[in-house]
């Protein structure tokens, strides 16, 4: 039975909006030009591939459903499980179900702590017991490195084959589209002289596919990034956290975009008392320290949820609502920047000739705002969305650490770091949760930062003027 959380709906809504924008942009030369510039940038395209990989994981994790427990034949009605799963859970099912007792190191065969085990002779021993799932198929622990290498080699060759297929497909499609001979195109791509940097795109893709396939295959029989305190696979947790990061990073800006745009344009266009009121509102909100505003709002939400605990069917629903609320409140603290930018730009634009002309012809204010001013500030909105993304992903981690972020039951990098704090203090230290969160977060944020730089350079008129 499919289940649609509010954030799922919004996330897919966002995907459709992006697609619609892409179609719109491709039909309008003034939008096509800067995007072409992004497409020609090697940095932009390489990071875009990585971002798309994250988005793909996040979207897989946003298709939720409740699995069917029986076949539902005859008089028995179909019974659905209370647990909500996502498509990603199915893909990573082995990792989700391979739950150990407690901590174990990456690729370990034994638990990280000693346990008292009674041997068959009745003697009690303190040993590191074998893991229930990690490397279960190995009879002799010394085979481990050979086994890992053979799995890696097989997975790598499969990945390489799949990649070659994709490369061939992409290149032949390109050749058909541009009506050029395939061989000429290939040599162009290999030498890196094609207009769109296909070489770097395909190379990045190969790295993504290779890492994905190898780690997935290894994950089937080992815990690639170890297990956490309750024995859950850290690799699986990191994958599940991708969605949280994406939701916070994108929905926050999306939710508050309408307010920021409307108020910003109105303040700049109407001036006078409208401007005063709007400026007052955002100065007031700005003057409250962001963390404290978020903290108070989340604390109050907690009180509300504790009092109205019956309103939520499942734990997941509750966690989802909390995440949405977090987006909302993060948005409240961050929309003021965009609003101020738009106000300033609108102040300038309303004096421009074409707006003056429209006013002289008696065009209605609402039409001037939507037809003449809004399209001319859209580049700022776009830049802001892209620039804010990475900051929000980082903010999620800090807030979850402070205890005012996403629900403690939600998988998130912040929660992983939070638990790592105690793990770093124990002896011997548990470092892999922290490292996993670091790798996943760093890759996403770095890619987002570099991509947003490319987008900003392509859209910022000041940068264009300098060149």
């Amino acid at each position: 039975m499919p289940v649609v959380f509010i954030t799922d709906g919004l996330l897919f809504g966002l995907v459709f909006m992006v697609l619609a924008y892409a179609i719109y942009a491709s039909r309008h030369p003034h939008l096509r030009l800067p995007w072409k510039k992004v497409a020609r940038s090697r940095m932009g395209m390489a990071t875009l591939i990585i971002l798309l990989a994250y988005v793909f994981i996040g979207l897989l994790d946003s298709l939720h459903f409740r699995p069917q427990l029986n076949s539902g034949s005859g008089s028995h009605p179909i019974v659905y499980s209370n647990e909500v799963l996502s498509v990603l859970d199915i893909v990573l099912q082995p990792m989700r179900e391979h739950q150990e007792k407690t901590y174990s190191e990456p690729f370990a065969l034994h638990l990280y702590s000693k346990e008292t085990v009674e041997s068959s002779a009745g003697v009690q021993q303190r040993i590191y017991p074998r893991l229930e799932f990690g490397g279960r198929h190995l009879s002799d622990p010394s085979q481990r490195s050979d086994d890992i290498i053979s799995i890696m080699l097989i997975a790598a060759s499969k990945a390489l084959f799949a990649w070659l297929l994709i490369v061939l497909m992409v290149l032949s499609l390109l050749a058909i589209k541009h009506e050029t001979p395939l061989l000429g195109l290939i040599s162009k791509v290999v030498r890196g002289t094609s207009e769109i940097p296909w070489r770097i795109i395909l190379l990045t893709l190969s790295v993504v596919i290779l890492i994905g396939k190898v780690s997935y295959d290894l994950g089937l029989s080992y815990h690639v990034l170890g297990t956490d305190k309750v024995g859950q696979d850290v690799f699986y947790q990191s994958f599940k956290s991708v969605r949280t990061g994406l939701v916070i990073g994108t929905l926050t800006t999306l939710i508050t975009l309408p307010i920021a745009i409307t108020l910003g344009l109105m303040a700049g266009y109407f001036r006078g008392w409208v401007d005063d009121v709007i400026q007052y509102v955002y100065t007031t909100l700005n003057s409250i320290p962001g963390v404290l505003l978020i903290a108070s709002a989340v604390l109050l939400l907690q009180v509300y949820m504790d009092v109205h605990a019956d309103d939520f069917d499942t734990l997941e629903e509750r966690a989802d609502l909390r995440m949405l609320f977090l987006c909302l409140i993060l948005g409240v603290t961050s929309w003021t920047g965009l609003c101020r930018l738009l106000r300033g730009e609108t102040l300038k634009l309303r004096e421009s000739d074409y707006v003056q002309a429209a006013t002289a012809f008696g065009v209605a204010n609402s039409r001037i705002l939507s037809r003449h001013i809004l399209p001319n500030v859209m580049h700022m909105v776009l830049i802001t969305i892209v620039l804010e993304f990475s900051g929000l992903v980082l903010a999620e981690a800090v807030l979850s650490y402070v205890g005012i972020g996403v629900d403690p039951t939600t998988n998130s990098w912040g929660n992983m770091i939070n638990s790592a704090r105690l793990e770093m203090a124990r002896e011997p230290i548990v470092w892999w949760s922290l490292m996993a969160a670091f790798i996943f977060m760093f890759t996403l944020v770095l890619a987002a930062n570099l991509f947003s730089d490319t987008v900003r350079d392509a859209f910022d008129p000041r940068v264009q003027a300098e060149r």
Partner: protein
Amino acid sequence: MIAYITRRMLYAIPILLGVNLLTFVLFFVVNSTDDMARLHLGVKRVNPEAVEVWKQEHGYDKPLLINAKAEGLEVVTDTILFTKSLGLFVFDFGRSDNGRDIGYDIRQRMWPSLAIAVPTLLVGLLVNLTFGLLIAFFRHTYIDLWGVIFCVALMSVSGLFYIVGGQYLIGKLLAVVPISGYDTGVNALKFLVLPVIIGVISGIGAGTRWYRTIFLEEIGRDFVRTARAKGLTERLVLFRHVLANGMIPIITGVVVVLPTLFMGSLITESFFGIPGLGSYTLDAINSQDFAIVRSMVFLGAVLYIVGLVLTDIAYTIADPRIRLN
């Protein structure tokens, strides 16, 4: 000048009123004081009498806006709005939910916060300026390109990792300084080194990149070209012309954060166990002490506005072309 500052201070009043109203609505209207009492008492011991007793002990048993039972002026003054919210305007923070004097706590805990924040700011400024200038000197070379990419990479690391990593490397592995804790007087020094170093390092990425942009903007200007045409050395051009003019946005950027240094950093202070205002706030958030959170929100807003006024003043001092009126 004085007239301008007075006027700016007067502008602050409606903003602070707004902040006050917002926190009032957040803390007392959205959730009733009954909910608050229930949360503090825990789910098990909840009964109407206990809730009433708790509210009375903490002074939450009054009506929100208008006390119909009271007489004279007390109709307005004997209310939650007046006793809990408006008192903040004269910096009367009242008592926290566990009975401590918030004003006293703030005055005590402000100093450790400053002891971390001020050195971090100064050292950070120096380091970032040096790197920014260095990258600007090597502009349009591979050093510039990779320097910027390195900065972006540094920016992409969450602050939490800097702290955890730094604590592990310097504190635990090398055991140079204690991992966390605080002491009074000179003894505090060894506890301050690590948080300051980590604070500086975590700021290098964003800071250097920002200063580089500022310097590159200045380098492109006519007076720099004139200076070069006069035959001045690159060193002289960079320090006397680019740095001096670039200092205007840098100074204002620094001045605006000066007042908020009092508030301390939530994360750093809690990780290093420093008894400053940051960890004070964090503890309040975790123990759901609304009285402290409310006070800190108000204090933060006041300091923010002070920062804005100071920025304006700093502008006139750093840039004689700007006149306040």
